[in-house]
């Protein structure tokens, strides 16, 4: 079995909405049915019992090794704790070759699972051992490592629940919510409004205390000290038990509480000094350790923290008791789990010693053995949720503390007997405030209710009803994509929005091109959706990206499918016929938002058939309103766009909007049929976006399709009295539309310059020249830059074959080189002629043409 062409589909794709790995698996003859291998299935189950059923009961089709691989990859992930359920194995046209698709929650984990599944299959085949436990552990650890931590994960889940799109920007916890100009960012519990100053302030415990005291918030008295002796002196000034802590620090490092003797203070000073040059001594407040979580101007959660401890049972020693507590699956070794394992280190031993124990002591039944002097979760403490008990005055002080320091998300640490009373009534105090507080203790407290802290943080980023989305229009189809995209973008710009656009010419933001080349894939889509200056996005969504990576967004507001027609680029990537192509292109329709629209060409049956898969509503467009599909749609009161009486008409129920073709220069007063199609699609999309009809009309009349705005899309030039048309069309449908358009224009003699890209099926290349042969007098064939897998001269020969029975062509020439071919055609032109140039290198050829036209025109002026 060979596995290759492994692709990570990082967005909705033709198989499913989830992220998934796709691979091509080639099985040897014997592997096409595992029933052929004696004992294989038994050996497989022995090594991975949880692989479960390989096919539903009673189904008799052979199970291939590829299918086993698929199921193993899925189930290994599932048993390692990944929330994945979808997988498929699909045969291809070639016997023994399959495409498998397996969902993943984290890409690297999915890839590792695929590798491990291959190892498993090989082990089952060769009867060699397979360490399942090690494999699952490896997967689990990798997943824990790369997936979002519990704090960030809670926030992301809350966002997803509100329909807010998100994207991880790093392997850490930096996440972007929303798109374009509405985006917001978080990094764990930091938001993009959390200021550097507030964070720096929060780290300086002394300055924090003095600022809080100035604001009238109860804080424990004390001061900074410069030596151990000074610390002892400060303690005497305070009188009573004290806390010694580093001035700068977090997570409780170096903090010792509740001490009194000079020896203890000296030791504590040394410990605090390790972490920070400056040390504080402050009054010890008796009571419990509370963490109050303030988000915005409200207390969202409060928890009582306990230091790590074990309870004696008179039988086990301290070490065993700790192991028992640590065996709780909620306790991990870092921050990834809701609790952390209790560490048996110097500090723990010191704490034991204080209580008269060591690790081998057996504490009596009921004895509470404390293992640390602070209750941070990161060193094994536990939390009890007390949110419902918080007194309003106490909450007010916590909120004031957070706002005084300036933190929008703040963990306020206070010590008091109970949160049921105001701080002032119990001589409690706020000991510090924390930026980017850990959320674990509120999400999964050891005791008590979980609190919706993720939701609270999302609410500070997005108000009620906001989801951070910008309008996204996805456009696909065989022909007319780029013009339609540009036209929609133009209409949106007319509304005052800054539009981000991806096309096969590049990425444009507010009319400035920021990337060149074919940018119709998910990467460019994601770039546009991350750009801070984009208010709306129109994304040409081509098959290549869809196959390689899936969509670059989760949902679009509008999906436009211009046509499928006879298809294009068929024969590649297992897309062999138009039905396959349709399945692929349908993906954007399947991922329309429920309150969005699909805009579909009713005259193209395959496109029209995609309507059934649309979660939102459908707008049909076609020149002819009497088509059965159009008539039915109208009868149901749905939206349609058609042509009638020299106008594009949009109709819903009884209401009509008319846009006269005479005022849409792109269509040349309706003469260019294919442009009318593009206009209908764009109008429907604009309608779906609720753009004002006056703005639509204005946009249509101001849209110029020239070299600058739509290079290679029916660019018309005047050359010494003859008409030149340059276009990039290169599939039978496009050529057909061009011919129809050309036939509508007057001409004495018609010439066409064509090459024909090599990466198409023979029949498609032939088909092009067949169409042309019936419409053009003079045909100039040239070999293009990119032979794309064909031998020299192969394509020209195919084209000549197509011209064999031409009805109109009298003269055929073969030229090497695009520019020479163009020049040859130009040289032969006389006034009144028409010449269609099917260009290949769009920018260069257009530049060359433009230069030739300019020099010809200046000659005219000079004379």
């Amino acid at each position, binding site marked *: 079995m060979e596995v290759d062409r492994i692709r990570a589909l990082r967005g909705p794709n033709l198989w499913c909405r989830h992220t998934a790995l796709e691979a091509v698996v080639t099985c040897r003859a014997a592997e096409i049915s595992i029933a052929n291998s004696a004992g294989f299935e038994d050996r497989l189950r022995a090594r991975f019992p949880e692989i479960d059923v390989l096919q539903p009961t009673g189904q008799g089709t052979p199970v291939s090794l590829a299918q086993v691989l698929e199921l193993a990859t899925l189930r290994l992930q599932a048993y390692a704790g990944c929330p994945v359920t979808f997988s498929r194995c699909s045969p291809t046209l070639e016997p023994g070759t399959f495409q498998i698709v397996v969902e993943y929650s984290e890409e690297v984990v999915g890839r590792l699972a695929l590798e491990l599944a291959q190892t498993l299959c090989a082990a089952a085949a060769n009867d060699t051992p397979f360490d399942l436990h090690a494999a699952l552990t490896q997967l689990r650890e990798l997943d824990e490592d790369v997936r979002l931590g519990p704090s960030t994960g809670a926030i992301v889940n809350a966002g997803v629940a509100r329909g807010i799109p998100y994207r991880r920007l790093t392997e850490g916890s930096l996440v972007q919510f929303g798109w374009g100009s509405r985006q917001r960012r978080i990094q764990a519990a930091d938001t993009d409004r959390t200021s550097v100053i507030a964070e720096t302030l929060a780290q300086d415990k002394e*300055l924090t205390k003095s*600022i809080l005291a100035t604001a009238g918030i109860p804080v424990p008295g004390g001061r900074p000290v410069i030596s151990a002796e000074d610390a002892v002196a400060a303690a005497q000034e305070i009188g009573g038990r004290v806390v010694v802590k580093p001035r700068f620090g977090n997570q409780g490092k170096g903090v010792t509480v509740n001490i009194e003797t000079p020896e203890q203070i000296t030791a504590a000073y040394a410990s605090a000094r390790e972490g920070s040059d400056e040390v504080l001594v402050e009054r010890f407040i008796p009571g419990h350790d509370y963490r109050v979580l303030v988000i915005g101007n409200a207390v969202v959660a409060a928890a009582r923290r306990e230091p790590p401890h074990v309870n004696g049972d008179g039988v086990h020693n301290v070490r065993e008791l700790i192991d028992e507590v640590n065996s709780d699956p909620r306790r991990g070794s870092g921050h990834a789990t809701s609790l952390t394992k209790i560490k048996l280190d110097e500090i723990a031993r010191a704490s034991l010693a204080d209580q008269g124990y060591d690790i081998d002591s057996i504490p009596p039944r009921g004895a509470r053995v404390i293992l640390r002097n602070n209750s941070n979760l990161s060193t094994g403490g536990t939390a009890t949720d007390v949110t419902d008990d918080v007194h309003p005055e106490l909450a007010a002080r916590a909120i004031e503390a957070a706002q005084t320091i300036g933190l929008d998300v703040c963990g306020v640490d206070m010590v008091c007997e109970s949160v049921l009373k105001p701080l002032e009534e119990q001589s409690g105090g706020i000991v510090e405030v924390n930026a980017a507080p850990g959320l674990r203790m509120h999400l999964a407290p050891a005791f008590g209710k979980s609190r919706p802290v993720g939701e609270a943080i999302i609410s500070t980023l997005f108000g009620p009803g906001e989801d951070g989305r910008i309008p996204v229009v996805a456009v696909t189809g065989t022909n007319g994509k780029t013009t339609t995209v540009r036209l929609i973008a133009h209409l949106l710009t007319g509304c005052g929005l800054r539009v981000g656009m991806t096309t096969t010419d590049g990425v444009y933001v507010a009319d400035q091109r920021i990337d060149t080349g074919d940018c119709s894939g998910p990467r460019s889509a994601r770039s546009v959706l991350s750009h801070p200056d984009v208010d709306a996005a129109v994304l040409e969504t081509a098959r290549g990206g869809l196959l390689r990576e899936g969509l670059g967004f989760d949902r679009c507001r509008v999906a436009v499918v211009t046509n499928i027609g006879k298809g294009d680029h068929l024969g590649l990537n297992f897309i062999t016929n138009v039905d396959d192509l349709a399945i692929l292109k349908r993906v954007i329709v399947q991922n329309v938002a429920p309150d969005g629209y699909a805009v579909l060409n009713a005259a193209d049956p395959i496109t029209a058939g995609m309507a059934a898969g649309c979660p939102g509503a459908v707008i049909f467009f076609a020149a002819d309103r009497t088509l059965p599909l159009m008539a039915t749609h109208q009868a149901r009161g749905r939206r349609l766009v058609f042509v009638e009486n020299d106008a594009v008409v949009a109709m819903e129920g009884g209401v009509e909007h008319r846009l006269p073709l005479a005022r849409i220069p792109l269509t040349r007063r309706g003469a260019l049929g294919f442009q009318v199609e593009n206009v209908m699609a764009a109008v429907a999309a604009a309608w779906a976006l609720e753009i004002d009809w006056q703005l639509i009309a204005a946009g249509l009349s101001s849209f110029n399709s020239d070299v600058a705005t739509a290079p290679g899309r029916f660019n018309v030039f005047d050359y010494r009295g003859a008409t030149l048309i340059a276009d990039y069309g290169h599939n039978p449908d496009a050529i057909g539309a061009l011919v129809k358009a050309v036939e509508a224009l007057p001409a004495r003699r018609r010439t066409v310059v064509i090459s024909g890209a090599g990466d198409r099926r023979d029949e498609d290349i032939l088909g092009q020249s067949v169409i042309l042969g019936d419409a053009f007098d003079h045909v100039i064939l040239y070999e293009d830059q990119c032979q794309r897998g064909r031998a020299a001269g192969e394509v020209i020969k195919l084209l000549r074959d197509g011209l064999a029975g031409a009805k109109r062509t009298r003269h055929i020439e073969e030229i090497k080189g695009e520019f020479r071919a163009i020049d040859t055609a130009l040289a032969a032109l006389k006034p009144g002629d028409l010449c269609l140039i099917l260009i290949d290198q769009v920018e260069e050829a257009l530049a060359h043409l433009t230069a030739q036209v300019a020099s010809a025109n200046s000659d005219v002026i000079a004379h």
Partner: protein
Amino acid sequence: MAKHIEIIRITPLRGPNRWTYRPVLEAVVDIGELEDYPSNTLDGFVGRLSAYLPSLSEHRCSYGEPGGFLRRLDEGTWSGHILEHVTLELQNLAGIPGGFGRARETSKHAVYTVVISAFDEHLTEIALLSARDLVMAAIEDRPFEVAAAIENLKTRRDALGLSPITLGLIAAAEQRGIPCRRLGAGELLQLGHGANQQCLRLTDTERTSAIADGIARDRELCHELLGSCGLPLVKFTRAASVDAACRAAADYGDAVVMKAGTAVPQIVVDPGDRGVIERVFNALGDDETVIEPFLAAHEYRLLMVGGKLIWAIEEPRGVAPARPRPSSAATLEVTDRVHPSFVQVAALAARVVGLNIAVVACVAEHIDRPVTEQAAGIIDLTSGASFLSAVMPSPEALPRICDAILGHLFPLGTTGRLPLVGITGASDTSATAALLGRLLQLSGKRVGRAAPDGIYVDQRRLPGRTKTVWEATQRLLANRWVEIAVVENGTGAIAGEGLGYDRCAVGVVTNMDPNATFPQLAIDNPDQVYAVLRTQVDVVLPTGIAVLNGVDPWVMRMLPLCDGEVIVYAALGYTAAVIEHRARGGRAVFVRAGRLVLARGAEEMVLPEFTRADAASNFNRNGDVQTITAAAAAAWALELPAELIHAGLETYAGELAATR
């Protein structure tokens, strides 16, 4: 009897005071016997003094021209005055800002009040004591280590921990009329007051996102985000070994730049020459080495504040291989030459990363030509602090940049001030402040009040004690919930502490006791008391209003001093001051037939009678009428609608009786 100069008492006045607007140190000085020995009677004194401090020749003194003070010395002047000038000069030589000084006789023989600008009161105290020692040494012909004294001041000044940037921000704040205060001992500044405040530390503002700061520090992440928005970038590779460096250099093809930490970057013209690369790698030191393609000849750094270009510098790169840049190369300012396309690129880069203040480092051949027409790229983004250090040699840089930062934080000329009412006088200030506080709460805004017994926000007294009114005022203005501030600062507070704010929207003077004395401050005549109280009127903003008691002639003398408008209040409408003021078109508040009248020139707004018996009876008690009219006038000054004034007086009448 030996000659001596004894400093009896030092009082820091930490805000506007009877001498001037700025904080000063006020010293009561007893010159004893020297009262009989003016400078021209002390043999050789003037010569020795000039030798110690030659720059005294610059002092203008009362002659208004350089050399003025020396003339006075020759003609004969007394030690208090001399002490003033010497202290000022020591501060000047130590680079401590501030040049205000006064010396005045008091009513006691040989006792003077000497007043010195106090940028930092501890520094000025040390300067004063040093000055005293210097003067005595000059009198007694003893040696004095002038240089050491100045060094001492400089060291202590540096120990204040104020960087030039912070000093620049403080100066810019003053220019813009934005109140500014240091928080703690570092560089943290509070700009503005109360709910309108913003904190600032060097170039970190409250709007500088911590996440953005982190993104900027991660060059890889930065490049990813910037690249996806189509911004031109300078590629880079981190090289941990000579081999890695050679590989990276080979990848980049043409000349490369090698950088490490803060070492001067080195240009390697032939990336195939392993020997050179190895030499440079080792010379660059232990920090991680970064290799970049040498994209263009010039490096630029653009300081962007709020999307605008404020300052740009060019740092020429050495061209020959491994030749370091001359370290003294003044960074060339090129702000006006930067092409708009570069500004756009830099602004977008800052937006993408999320920084409101950012330094964009980039390379280009010509900064004055479009970015798309040449080889150019962004290296990285950093915070502004290091940039500011780099441009400091240029004298206009720091002021312009600090001004731009403040303009970004306080746009359109806002100052972060609150409506602040200062109330002073010999009596009635507490009752007026309390009543005013009540009235203003009806506006729906949160009112903070600083009183001798504590600080109140709305009606809640904040815990904690303050020793001085000045301290209480600072705490009040630092509180983020306060939207309107009322400060009760009596005569004693202004005299002994200075005002707790630099300017106010409304200044109320209730009355003056001409017989009041403050012996420890050498205040014992009415003119001095007047000088203290008028401070409240001096600090009223040009857009503000002074509220003055029309019945008190001393208070009325202050009327022309106010930069803004004046409202005169009195119990009776036919008080002379009220009539005169209304004749000028001014505003007045008084009572007629038991009803409060708010008058503007000839127009009158007469409030309805009070329905509550105790409210009405308040008008019958003289003391209460004063309080009510003063508080009503101040509330009116802050534009509280008349109906609310009336409702407030009606409702809180009971409390007024309780305070009596």
